[in-house]
């Protein structure tokens, strides 16, 4: 597969997807995106066929998705994927099955695009699932086998998952002073009751457009319970903001929506996450992208995102009781050390924050602030932090 070509494609895709576009151009954009994706899939099939007929071992080159192939771009302050590739061959006993699965999913995606339909990751697994002719072997043993292959296909083709017409099950919610148009339906995020609006997996401009917006900033919290607290207290109304939640590690839909709101609506993003290595890493994913999806950082990362809390120092500052301490496990310590060593955590504030947590020897959840009062976090903690600009980056 021609790699250079792909890089070029990818850049153009970003521009088309990233810019503000009117409805008509977006449909046209979608069509041209589809055409491009199909072209790449056909190329993939053609390359493999040609190699096979030429008597060579067919292969697919897949960019490596690992720390070793992740570059920290200090200028752009995002994670980027390096050039390392892994060649997946057919005539290699360890790779043959994966090779077959890659080809199977590729042809499945092509069919989806041609029919103009989308499927969830799980449905995609079912679509490609069958028993191999003349054997008892199934093409996939489970969704956990098909998901990574699809990610492989994304990076190999340089096409995003949504461009392949596949989406993940949604996770994450949003409420706030914003109106969006989802596939033509106007949705007022101010009137979402207690449930909130579930953030879909695909939030590209072709699906979701922004309408009226009064909000001044975005508060992203780690999980649904905390989000429910803020929503019940109408925090977003009081502080004129948008409130989002990502169900732990935010899925691509949430990250993409945050990025679009940040970029297109010009809203700063503040994160309220647990004081533990996992919370820290969630912040870093929102801020500069993940290693696994480093190729998507460009359209996902929000380098200006701020980490509001919980901070390791809050235990003393707010005089929290011993009861909220959760001892750091060995695994937590290992992970914390790993995170501290990532180059994108190499700044004074973060090194100090991690060190403080390690010195404390315990972690804290956002919910620990409930001990100070049910609405302490919404009425005092966050407002105070934001007013004092007490955050780290």
């Amino acid at each position, binding site marked *: 597969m021609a790699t250079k070509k792909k890089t070029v494609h990818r850049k153009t895709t970003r521009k088309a997807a990233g810019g503000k576009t009117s409805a008509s151009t977006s449909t046209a954009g979608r069509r041209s995106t589809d055409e491009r994706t199909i072209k790449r899939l056909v190329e993939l099939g053609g390359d493999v066929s040609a190699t096979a007929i030429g008597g060579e071992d067919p292969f697919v080159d897949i960019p490596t998705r690992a720390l070793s192939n992740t570059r920290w771009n200090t200028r752009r302050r995002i994670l980027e994927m390096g050039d390392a590739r892994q060649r997946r061959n057919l005539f290699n006993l360890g790779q043959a099955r994966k090779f077959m699965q890659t*080809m199977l999913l590729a042809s499945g995606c092509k069919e989806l695009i041609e029919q103009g339909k989308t499927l969830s990751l799980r449905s995609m697994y079912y679509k490609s699932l069958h028993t191999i002719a003349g054997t008892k072997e199934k093409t996939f043993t489970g969704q956990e086998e098909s998901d990574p292959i699809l990610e492989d296909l994304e990076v190999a083709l340089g096409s995003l998952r949504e461009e392949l017409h596949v989406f993940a099950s949604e996770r994450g919610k949003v409420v706030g002073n914003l109106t969006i148009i989802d596939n033509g339906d106007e949705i007022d995020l101010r009137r979402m009751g207690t449930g909130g609006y579930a953030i879909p997996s695909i939030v590209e401009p072709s699906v979701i457009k922004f309408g009226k917006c009064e909000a001044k900033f975005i508060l992203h919290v780690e999980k649904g319970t905390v989000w429910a607290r803020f929503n019940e207290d109408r925090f977003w109304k009081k502080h004129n903001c948008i409130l989002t939640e990502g169900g732990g590690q935010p899925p691509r839909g949430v990250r993409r929506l945050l990025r679009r709101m940040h970029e297109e609506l010009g809203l700063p993003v503040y994160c309220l996450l647990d004081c533990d290595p996992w919370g820290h890493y969630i912040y870093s994913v929102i801020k500069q992208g993940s290693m696994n999806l480093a190729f998507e950082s460009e359209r996902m990362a929000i380098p200006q995102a701020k980490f509001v809390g919980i901070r390791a120092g809050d235990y003393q500052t707010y005089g929290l009781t011993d009861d909220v301490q959760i001892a750091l496990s060995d695994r937590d310590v290992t992970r914390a050390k790993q995170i501290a060593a990532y180059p994108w955590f190499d700044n004074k504030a973060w090194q100090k924050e991690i060190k403080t947590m390690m010195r404390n020897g315990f972690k804290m959840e956002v919910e620990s602030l409930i001990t100070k009062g049910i609405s302490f976090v919404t009425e005092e903690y966050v407002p105070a932090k934001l007013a004092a600009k007490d955050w780290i980056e």
Partner: protein
Amino acid sequence: MSGTETPTLVPPKSGPPTERAAPAKEAPTLPGGRRKTTSRRAGARGSTAEELSTRQREISVSEFFAKNRHLLGFDNPRKALLTTVKEAVDNALDACEEAGVLPDLRVELLPLTETRFKVLVRDNGPGIVRKQIENVFGRLLYGSKFHRLKMSRGQQGIGISAAGMYGLMTTGKPVVILSRTSAKTPVHEVVLKMDTSRNRADIVSDEERPGEADRFPDGHGTEVSIELEGRHLKGRQSVDEYLEQTAIANPHARIEYRTPTGEEILFDRAVEELPPDTEEIKPHPMGIELGTLIQMLERTSATQLGAFFKQEFCRVGPTSAKEICRRAGLSDRSWIKQVGHDEAERLYAAIQEVRVPAPPTSCVQAIGTKTLLSGLLKEVRGEFYAASTRPPSVYRGRPFIIEAAIAYGGDLPGDEPSRVIRFANRVPLQYQQSACSSFKAVLETNWRNYGLTQPRGGVPVAPLTVMIHMASVWVPFTSESKEAIADYDEIRKEMRLALQECGRKLQTYLNRRRRMARQGERRSAFLRYIGEIAKSCGELTGRDPTAVHEALLKQAEVKTAEVDQILDDEGRIIDDGGSLARDEGVVIVESRQGRPVEDDEGGDLFGEGGAERSTSRRSASKSKTRRKAKRGGSR
């Protein structure tokens, strides 16, 4: 060796204990009794020495064994039937081989009633001259094999006479012998009844039977029929098993067998050559016992010690003889008459110190790996066969050779303990397995080293048949019924070494098979996916996937071509055989080989044509082309 050398029958010293012990028990003391009463009573209950002496007399060896028939293998009707067949067949084979005739045997078991059988064994051997018939079949411990050191099946001259005796005792029927020594002489029919008290045979009838000449188409042979009480059961330790194992160890013999149910079974000849004749040897000084030495000194015709050693022993030259005498404080010119007990004891000690070369090994003849394999191949349906023959070795001054062979895989059951079949001088040993040195050697061998499962202290659980053969001028049996080989360290060690050699060959084979299975797995994995890949490619490009499919199939074949190759130990590809194929002691029957792939998906790749392919390695290349042709056709 020669029939004239009739042994003087010395009654067993241990005698039947009941007769002698009885009077001794009645020692004349009564509790609190007075002398008078005691002596008076002695007349009534006890016996005086004089009275006893009238009852004391020689016990004939026949009487002894008649009472102790279990010692000879006639413990129960089932075993008696087997022992009878066995003694007759062993004798027949010995006779044929000594006469240089390829044995043609017929064995018949005719059921007369539920518990009574007539055993008939006919051979094409040299026959027996008329005047010796009653001696051979009618006397115990009469034979040509006891007084010599030569390898033969029979040793003691007990077997067939004992069988006749057992028949007479259980049915009252005499033994019928038909014999013809040449085409010119008539067929003799002799009917014999044993007189156990005299260890002689009474002739019931003795007639010439010209009408029976067609029983011996070769012009010579012997037929013996014995009626006896017996029981016939199939399976382990049966007549059928005995004949099957005999056929394994004697592939030069052709044996027809008529079972009690009237079924005819043929154990055909696999080798057209007689085993080479063996020489008779003199005793070797090592392993001679003091008593034997004294006896030899008494009986020798030599007058001086030096001559005695040279004449009566093998491998003792003038130098060794001189050295033995010197160490014993004697000279090689000392007169034998002067040698008393003390001198003999000194000589015995000196013999142990002087190094004498090992006995000549021309007197023992191994079956040979090739013959061993053809025998095993004929009767055991395995896929892999290996055999090894050890160089001759010596125990107690007697040369012996150990051979081992194994059959593996094929139709052999894989989840049962392996079968061990034991032979001594080509005779199957069916009883007392666990007492036998050879069985112990099998247990002692660590079969796990060769890739088999072996429970602690047991035989391996694998589709395996192990065969062990000991050939010797004198096989040390644990009893007269010749059921187990005595446990001498030298013997067990040789057995172990032979088994280990077979084990190593098996390991090589199993490794190779595993390697081929891996290759097969590889290919089948590729082949499984190629269809899917070609189809996907077709869907992606919108072109006909046939070209891609065929190109990929071709590649898969090239990339995994090793499956079709025969690999040697190091995994190198070889065309006409690896170390196993060059090994004379290995036979592989490919048609019986288990498929290297476990699941049936890839199966038809390795599926064989229905016909059994023969054993030679060279046929591998043929099979390769056939396999290819088949694959091409099926597409």
